[in-house]
């Protein structure tokens, strides 16, 4: 084994999710400790009669799950102590109608007053007309506001941004999202395991593999399924191809927002070549519906193997040339260096996942720190930086591309023989499982509860962007309005993922 570190063994990895039922006081205490940094808030969600929190102990790295039964349909607000919980909590109220006592922000988040019903996962009663959304008040001299969206100029997901500027300098950005809310939580309820996998793979289109894998992990943990080794290696190849495609494409897109179109053209060629290899190897450019509970649906044949091997060799030659191009062009560096700096303090408080956190000193990667097979058998490093600007986020992604290449090569070299699927039989009793996978954007979390018949009673899907969006708002302060696109692209938050 080439494992370098020995992280905390995580019990949720191979058995039904352990869950502690706590009192309201303990719940509030956990929120306070999360705000103080003893725990990192990984997610906050609801079921019909309870609310749940996933926390990671900062020192030991252990994942904990707390559950609090509701009292008269209410629970003590976590956001009142810990701002990172705010939007998750507002969504709980929107979807279930559970009230957060003491919440600092009682505005709806996902509910725009257009569904015709209120609390679709709770009472689902006919919805009252909502008052127009109130943006946070701004006070000061010679401020002007620029409202943008939900429809933007480019080919991009919809969301509304309210900029407040003093001259050219931004003093506040407030995002309003929820436009792509599709009601996935409700569609999941009562769905079969297979239908759930289809939905999970479509939470955020650029992270199909990561989402499907996290969902599969949750199901496999709940049902105690042993996944064949070959399937795990194939999942890794897919997940790393997905990371490559996104990182390479986005490096080009960030540079394009800094008016360096040549990087976009060159990176888009490489991205296309990754997707084409994925299609040859796994039969779909985004490898969608390939990862399912129990294993994978598509084996790698010799043609697929050759295509991936050829891609790796090709990228090893082409990619360094692009990095040289980026690093040697002063005009793009002038746009990326010192722009959009995220303080490491903020990254830590919000437990920012992925390259956003790692570019601001948060040294966490699910693959290493909450390891899942087969990453515990593979050699890779987790790059981090402290400068936290657009340039740092680009460099983290460059380094991660190199790691992904190495990981895929290792997987090809060691690919075990054998079956690629193990059936998942219903447990005959209610079960729940937790899945946590490192997508290109950061950790995606799935909590899945199954009934005795194996049907889904609740599936909670937490996208990394929940914690990135508020940080982007913080980052933008003091930058000029014209730098918003490049800052925004350097985060590349998902809209569909958190809107669900």
């Amino acid at each position, binding site marked *: 084994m080439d494992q370098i570190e020995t992280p905390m063994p995580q019990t949720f990895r191979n058995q039904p999710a352990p869950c502690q039922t706590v009192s309201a006081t303990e719940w509030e205490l956990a929120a306070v400790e999360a705000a103080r940094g003893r725990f990192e808030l990984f997610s906050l969600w609801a079921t019909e009669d309870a609310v749940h929190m996933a926390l990671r102990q900062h020192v030991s790295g252990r994942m904990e799950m707390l559950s609090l039964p509701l009292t008269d349909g209410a629970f003590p607000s976590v956001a009142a102590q810990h701002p990172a919980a705010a939007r998750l909590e507002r969504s709980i109220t929107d979807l279930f109608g559970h009230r957060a006592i003491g919440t600092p922000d009682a505005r709806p988040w996902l509910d725009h007053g257009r569904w015709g019903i209120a609390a679709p996962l709770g009472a689902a009663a006919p919805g009252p007309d909502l008052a127009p959304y109130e943006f946070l008040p701004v006070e000061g001299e010679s401020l002007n506001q620029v409202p943008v969206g939900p429809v933007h100029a480019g080919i*991009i*997901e919809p969301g509304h941004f309210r900029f407040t500027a003093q001259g050219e300098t931004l003093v506040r950005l407030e995002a309003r999202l929820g436009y*792509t*809310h599709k009601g996935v939580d409700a*569609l999941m309820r009562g769905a079969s395991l297979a239908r759930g996998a289809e939905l999970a793979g479509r939470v955020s289109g650029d992270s199909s593999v990561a989402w499907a894998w996290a969902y599969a992990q949750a199901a496999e943990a709940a049902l105690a399924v042993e996944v064949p080794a070959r399937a795990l290696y194939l999942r890794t190849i897919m997940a790393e191809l997905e990371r490559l495609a996104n990182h390479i494409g986005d490096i080009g897109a960030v540079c394009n927002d800094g008016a360096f179109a040549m990087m976009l053209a060159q990176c888009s*060629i490489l991205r*296309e070549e990754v997707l084409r290899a994925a299609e040859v190897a796994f039969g779909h450019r985004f490898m969608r519906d390939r990862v399912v509970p129990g294993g994978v649906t598509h084996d790698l044949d010799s043609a697929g193997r050759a295509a991936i091997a050829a891609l790796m060799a090709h990228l090893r030659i082409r990619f360094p040339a692009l990095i040289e191009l980026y690093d040697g*062009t002063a005009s793009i560096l002038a746009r990326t260096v010192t722009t959009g700096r995220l303080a490491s303090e903020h990254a830590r408080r919000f437990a920012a996942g992925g390259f956003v956190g790692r570019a601001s000193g948060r040294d966490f990667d699910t693959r290493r720190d909450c390891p899942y097979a087969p990453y515990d058998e593979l050699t890779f490093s987790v790059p981090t930086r402290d400068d936290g600007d657009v340039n740092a986020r680009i460099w983290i992604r460059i380094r991660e591309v190199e790691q992904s290449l190495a990981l895929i090569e290792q997987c090809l070299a060691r690919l075990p023989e054998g079956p690629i699927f193990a059936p998942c039989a219903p447990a005959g009793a209610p079960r729940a499982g937790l899945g946590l996978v490192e997508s290109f954007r950061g950790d995606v979390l799935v909590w899945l509860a199954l009934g005795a018949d194996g049907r889904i009673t609740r599936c909670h899907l937490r996208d990394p962007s929940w914690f990135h969006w508020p940080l982007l708002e913080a980052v933008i302060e003091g930058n000029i309005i014209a730098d918003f696109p490049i800052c925004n692209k350097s985060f590349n938050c998902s809209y569909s993922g958190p809107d669900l």
Partner: protein
Amino acid sequence: MRKFLLEGLLRRPLTEAAPTDPEIAAMALATGQAARRRLGRSLSIRQLDAGSCNGCELEIHALSNPYYDLERFGLHFVASPRHADVLLVTGPVTKNMTEALQRTYAAMPNPKWVVAVGDCGRDGGCFAGSYAVEGGVSAVLPVDLVIPGCPPSPKALLTGLLSLLDAAEGKRA
């Protein structure tokens, strides 16, 4: 940078051959107009995400990479609906996006076409039946062409748009 520019001069272009006529003709137009091919026409496209998972957008983006090079056909993306002939809509049309979609369509000058992209754009795809979606672009706007797939490949998108180019010529003549 010089290296890349020089290489661009010396290397064969990556751009691939256009989809063939039978492929284009095979795209069924909802309006049933007779296709009339005339090269040199151009269409301005406004893309709108009405609640997609972003998968369709990624493939629409790919149309601009050198392999497909959409602009060689006179097709290009525009920022304002006021400059657009075609509204290219993705997603199961979420209720939270319905008004934005209608207003974007209303802002376009006549004549105009609507293309529904992806299985979601066709009928809501795997999100159909949710309280939060309308279910397909045609639930909100008159649709001229559907390009199915989850997501449709860039080639399928290109083929669909070229078939529209023909039909657009018919509608205008």
